[in-house]
């Protein structure tokens, strides 16, 4: 299973990254090197095996804890926006979003 340049560009677009043509080989080589190992993994028979999403699951089934519906976050706009690149009247400014 090898990724082509086309695959790479599609994934880059999905991930909002730019990979110039000159950098493609550099980016792809280790990825394809990794996939060589992946093929071995895919050969393992995992019929009937339930994916392990939460590691502690093997010891104890994990269930989502639920919290009380209570407000306890006061307005902290200034603190939360202190690292924002561009704020006007409390709004985060970005190039126009076209619907």
């Amino acid at each position, binding site marked *: 299973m090898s*990724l082509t340049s086309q*695959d*790479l560009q599609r*994934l*880059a677009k*999905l*991930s*909002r*990254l*730019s*990979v110039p043509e000159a950098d493609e080989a*550099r*980016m792809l080589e*280790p*990825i394809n*090197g*990794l996939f060589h*190992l*992946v093929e*071995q*993994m*895919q050969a*393992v028979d*995992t019929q009937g*095996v*339930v*994916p*392990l*999403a*939460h*590691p*502690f699951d*093997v*010891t104890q089934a*994990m269930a*989502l*804890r639920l*919290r009380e519906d209570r407000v306890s976050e006061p307005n*902290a706009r200034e*603190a*939360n*926006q*202190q*690292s*924002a*690149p*561009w704020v006007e009247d409390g709004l*985060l400014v*970005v*190039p*126009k*979003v*076209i619907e």
Partner: protein
Amino acid sequence: MSELHTQSLRQLSEALHAKTLSATELAQHFLARAQADTTGSFLAIDPAATLAQAQQADARLANGTATRLTGLPIAHKDIFVTREWPTTAGSRMLAGYRSPFDATVVARLGHGDHGAGMVNLGKLSCDEFAMGSSNENSAFGPVKNPWDPSRIPGGSSGASAAAVAAGLVPAATGTDTGGSIRQPAAFCGITGIKPTYGRASRYGMIAYASSLDQAGAMARSAEDCAWLLSALCGPDLDRDATSLDVPAEDFSAQLGQPLQGLRVGLPQEFFGEGLSSSVREAIDAAMAQLRQLGATTVPLSLPLTELAIPAYYIIAPAEASSNLSRFDGVKFGHRCEHPADLMDLYVRSRTEGFGEEVKRRILVGAYVLSHGYYDAYYLQAQRVRRLIADDFQKAFAQCDVIAGPVAPTVAWGLGEKANDPVANYLADIFTLPASLAGLPAMSVPVGFGEAGMPVGLQLIANHLQEGRLLNVAHQYQCHTDWHLKTPQGI
């Protein structure tokens, strides 16, 4: 005063409580060392903030509300967000970022309500977003191994290990996703421990791979690690849904237990061809020492060990690719100049902000989660993960702890594998399995290998058995002095 930086947390704590030393003096001593650092470990130092914390600690020491950790210096891997210091995660993406809140781990060790009162010396470098095994992936320069500055300290908590080894700080926090505490601890000759997944809160720990990331302790001894780990672990039910609802524990309680009857499992897959002979020798000597202390060894097999590499390098990038989507130049972090439109804002900000390895893992992650590939890659990896975890459970039916090397070799030279990510991935083979299974694991210095570089022994225990691990390591350290060795000039 000049040997303060080689003393253990226990020794320093005793001095503080005996009032032969103040937290302020201690802080000043280590600040001076940190500011003169040549390893490249510190990314942020703020003497005023540190001394303010030292003052608070001295007040607690005076009024009797101090804990055993109060007033002791600590430094945090720059993956933990802090209010008073910037947080970068080793990335240009977060250069100058200021968090409005402290990570739970930081608060528990520091001056939050119920905090232990440690004094933060600053933020330590790491591989960008914790992705890497050499600390060469930091956007702010590589970190040098204090034992040999031409070599890597390991990663991703490379600076945490280097700073402790170089006596810049007596203890540091690290994070371990695939071995990022254990491996740098081994490469720098210090002790490091990753607890059971879910023991330490992930709130405020910048996420790389959510189902694998864990905070842990790095220090000069198992006892020091036990002190630190006890304080930073504990349920965070309010803020972290993956935090285990298991009471906090004093992991130093059973340090003194003799090792008579301890069964140590040795997985054959950890002792194969790839293991360098010098590392093998040091490990073998350590095992002999454990036997002398009353342990018996049991041969084991963890047959899927090699597959831990592809499984991890599918699961971790998948989760990372999603976790890193929030870095978009909109709310915080790097924004490109004069974005032409929204797409340009996203693409340029992210391309400029992220380093190469991070980008690579994001792309891999996007691929394995893609429609049509999800089952064959991500789900398959999660299934293999369960098989690996099950194999550990079978192993623990026959032994109490599992032992083996942390890494196949000693620390390699800076730049040597910088352009060969896969070589880096392969070197993680021994640490990845315990990560996938969420098991507690640690690294203990057990000697030196090639070129006089430190070698670490890995110990792995079953879920919630951190006390056991630290006990084994502590008993070993009571009878050996590898952990007391320091690099030349330190």
